[in-house]
């Protein structure tokens, strides 16, 4: 084995000393920790939701049809995200750009819906400090929205980097890891939609 090949083999062996991508391992570890974080926030909401002594109360202000559309938008963004990854893995960079941009736009649409919802709630007199429901609701959904916002920045960065040739078929794992984060944000909303909006108390 030549010196160059030996060096490359050493680098590869270091990168995959577990037989797995360490970058993916790190992302999954982060997502596991984020599970605990959101688990605490969702439980805090569930405990506090029925303990407010003043209104407005959830049943008075939730707009289920509107939130259902928001949930569908975020679910759809998971499909476009995975299609972006599939395109890049097949070497179709232009198709990848279309899907990754669509994902970022759907994420932005979701955030726009959240802004509208927050504004509506505010007009109904619900603020962060109004009651226990308001405090726990805004903290939970606000932190989730922050996750979505960071995800959009990540996706747009990948979109921009693809024009400089830095996102390619041979390093599609960069997109896969961003996708893991994006899908996680989606599954957190699946849980929030059920436990915060739909379940009766």
């Amino acid at each position: 084995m030549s010196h160059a090949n030996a060096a490359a083999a050493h680098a590869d062996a270091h990168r995959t000393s577990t037989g797995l991508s360490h970058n993916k391992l790190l992302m999954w570890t982060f997502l596991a920790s984020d599970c605990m974080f959101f688990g605490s926030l969702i439980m805090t909401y569930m405990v506090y939701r029925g303990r407010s002594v003043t209104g407005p109360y959830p049943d008075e202000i939730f707009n289920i049809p509107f939130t259902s559309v928001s949930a569908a938008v975020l679910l759809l963004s998971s499909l476009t995200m995975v299609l972006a990854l599939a395109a890049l893995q097949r070497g179709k960079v232009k198709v990848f750009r279309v899907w990754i941009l669509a994902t970022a736009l759907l994420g932005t649409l979701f955030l726009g819906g959240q802004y509208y919802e927050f504004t509506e709630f505010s007009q109904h007199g619900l603020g962060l400090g109004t009651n226990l429901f308001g405090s726990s609701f805004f903290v939970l959904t606000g932190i989730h929205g922050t996750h979505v916002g960071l995800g959009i920045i990540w996706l747009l960065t990948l979109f921009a980097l693809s024009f400089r040739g830095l996102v390619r078929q041979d390093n599609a794992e960069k997109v896969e890891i961003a996708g893991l984060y994006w899908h996680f944000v989606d599954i957190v909303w699946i849980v929030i939609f059920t436990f915060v909006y739909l379940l009766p108390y």
Partner: protein
Amino acid sequence: MSHPGGETSVEHAHPGAITYVKVAAILAILTITEVSVYYIPALMTIITPVLIVLSIAKFLLVVAFYMHLKFDSRLFTGIFAWGMFVAIAIVLAMIALYAY
């Protein structure tokens, strides 16, 4: 796939676009069912378990297919399951703390 370190990767090829679209269709049906159940008064007595089951089904579909846990190493599944286990333990502990 073999690696220089001698280990054998247990990651498998990811599914194609058609599978992803099929999963999306199932997710859409489950979401429509969730919202429909919410509006049917006759189902109020069983709404909580039904919604939780539907939510778990959607969660598992995204994790298995879109996040590729069905095809990737079981170590990733184990790491994520551990996080979920702790999260659920937190939820149960809080219920026990506040309900009694």
